[in-house]
C-alpha cells in the first residue's frame, strides 16, 4: 500500500467537512474521486498535502504519518498537487513558476530535462515563458499549474480538476499525459467533474457524498453502476 487514508476527519472552523474518509492507493494506480460539489474531494487532497489540518484519523504514506508532517516535508516525500483554482504565482513569470515547482529537486540536470518535457507537452507555456502568470488565460494557467506539479517528478501526483477550462483538444492531451506519466511509474489521484473521462482513465474510483466515501470499486464497475450513472454521468447516454 502506497498511501492509506484512515478514518480522516477535517474541520473548517466548527464545521466538519470530512467525516471519516477511508481511501487506499496502491503503487502505480490511477485513482479517481468522484462526487458532487462540496462533497469534500478537494478537502481530501488538501489534507494529503498538509494544507488543511487533520482533526483526527491518519494519512500514511508507505507507513509514514503524513498527517503529522508539515506541507513542505510532504512535498519532499514526493507528493505534489495541482490544486483547485490553479493558484499560480500571479506576479511571477511562467518560467519562475515552473522553477518553483522544482523547489525541492536537487538534480539540476533532471530538472532541465523535465522542463523540456513540459514545454513539449504544453508548447504554449514555452511561448509565454516570460509572461506573468497572472495575465495568462484561464486555460493557460491550468496548464501551468499542472506543469508546475510535474516539475518535482513526484511519486504521487494529486490533480484537482485538471481539465477545468481547457479546450477539448487539450483535455485529451492532459488525460493522455496522465496516462503516460502513470505508465512511467507515478501514482495519480484524480478529482474530476468529468466523471466519464475520469473513470475511463482510472483503475479504481471512490464516490464521495457530503464528507463520506459511499462507494469504492474498480473504474469499470463504477462506470456501469446504475447509481453512479444517474448521479454523475448525466444518466444513460
Amino acid at each position, binding site marked *: 500500500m502506497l498511501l492509506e487514508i484512515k478514518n480522516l476527519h477535517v474541520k473548517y472552523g466548527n464545521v466538519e467537512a470530512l467525516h471519516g474518509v477511508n481511501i487506499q492507493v496502491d503503487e502505480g494506480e490511477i485513482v479517481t474521486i468522484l462526487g458532487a460539489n462540496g462533497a469534500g474531494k478537494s478537502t481530501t487532497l488538501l489534507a494529503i498535502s498538509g494544507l488543511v489540518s487533520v482533526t483526527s484519523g491518519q494519512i500514511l504514506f508507505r507507513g509514514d504519518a503524513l498527517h503529522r508532517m508539515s506541507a*513542505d516535508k510532504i512535498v519532499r516525500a514526493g507528493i*505534489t*498537487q495541482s490544486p483547485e483554482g490553479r493558484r499560480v504565482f500571479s506576479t511571477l513569470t511562467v518560467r519562475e513558476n515552473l522553477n518553483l515547482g522544482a523547489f525541492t529537486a536537487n538534480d539540476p540536470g533532471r530538472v532541465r530535462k523535465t522542463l523540456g518535457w513540459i514545454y513539449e507537452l504544453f508548447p504554449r507555456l514555452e511561448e509565454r515563458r516570460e509572461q506573468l502568470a497572472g495575465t495568462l488565460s484561464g486555460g493557460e494557467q491550468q496548464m501551468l499549474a499542472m506543469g508546475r506539479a510535474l516539475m518535482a517528478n513526484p511519486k504521487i501526483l494529486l490533480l484537482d480538476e485538471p481539465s477545468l477550462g481547457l479546450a477539448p483538444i487539450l483535455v485529451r492531451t492532459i488525460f493522455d499525459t496522465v496516462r503516460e506519466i502513470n505508465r512511467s511509474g507515478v501514482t495519480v489521484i484524480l478529482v474530476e467533474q468529468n466523471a466519464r473521462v475520469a473513470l475511463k482513465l482510472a483503475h479504481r474510483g471512490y464516490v464521495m457524498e457530503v464528507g463520506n466515501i459511499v462507494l469504492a470499486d474498480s473504474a469499470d464497475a463504477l462506470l456501469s453502476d446504475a447509481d453512479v450513472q444517474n448521479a454523475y454521468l448525466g444518466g444513460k447516454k
Partner: protein
Amino acid sequence: MEEFFHQLTNGLAIGGIYALIALGYTMVYGVLKLINFAHGDLFTIGAYLGLTLLTSLSLNQYLGAFLGVLLLAVMVMGLVGIIGIILDRAAYRPLRQSPRLSAVVSALGASIFFQNAVMLIYGARYKFYPQGILPRIALNILGVDIPLMRILILLTSVVMMVALYLFIQKTKVGTAIRAAAIDQGAARLMGINVDRVIMIVFLIGPALGGVAGLMVGLYYGQINFTMGWVYGLKAFTAAILGGIGNIPGAMVGGLLLGVIEALGAAYISIAWKDAIAFCVLIGILIVRPTGLLGERVAEKV
C-alpha cells in the same frame, strides 16, 4: 552651485537612513502584506541596545573603533532580529488569516507597547552615545566637507540593498520568499517551509531596522524613545515612493525622499519641507499609482 551640491549630500545622507529602514519595512510588507508600524520602534530598540552594549562591553577599546563597531552592529542586528521574530509570533502570527486591517491595528498596538517599554526601561530622558567612538573625519568632495560617517551610512545602505536584492532574486531562499509573498498555500505546495520563510523575513527586516538605529545613535549621538515613530513614517513613505515590496524601490524611495526634503528645505521653506515631500509623493503616485519602480501587478478579469 556649491550649496546645491552640499544640500544634495545632506539629502543623500539622511536618505540613506530612510532607505535602510525602508528596506526592512519593504521586506516584511512584501511577504505578509503587513504594514509593520512597529518597525520604527524596532529601530529605536536597535539604537538603545546599541548604546547599552557599547557602554557595557566597550568593544571598541579591545578591538579598535571599526572592528568594535562592526561587531556591535552584528550583535544589534541579531538581537533586534530575535525581537522581530518574537513580535511576529506574538502579535502577527495569530492574525494571518484575519482581515488585513486587524493586523495593522495589532502592529500599532505593538508599536505603542515597544515605545513605552523602552521608556520604562531606559527612562524618558534623552540618551546620549559617548562621543568619538568613530573618528569624526570629513572628506572634502568638490569643495564640500562631508563627514565620513555620512558616507559610511550611505554606503551601508547601498551594500545592504544590493546584498538583499541578490539574496531575494538569486538564492533559493529568496525565491521561496518571493513565492510565499504571493500565495502562502501554493508556496507550501511547492515544498516551501513558509513558517521558516516568515521567520527569516522577520529576522532580516527588523535587523536592518536595528542596525539603522545603531548608526543613527553613533552618528547623531542623541536618542529618544519616541524617535522611531518619525523615522518609521518616513521609511514607510520611502518604501511606498519606490514601490512597496520592491527592494531597489525602497532604496530609491529613501534616497529620493531625503533629497526632496533637503532641497525643499533649502529652496522653498524649511517649515514646509515635510509637506513638500508629501506633495511630491502624492504627485508621483498620481502619475505612477504603484510607486516609482512599481509593484508587479497581474490582475486579470
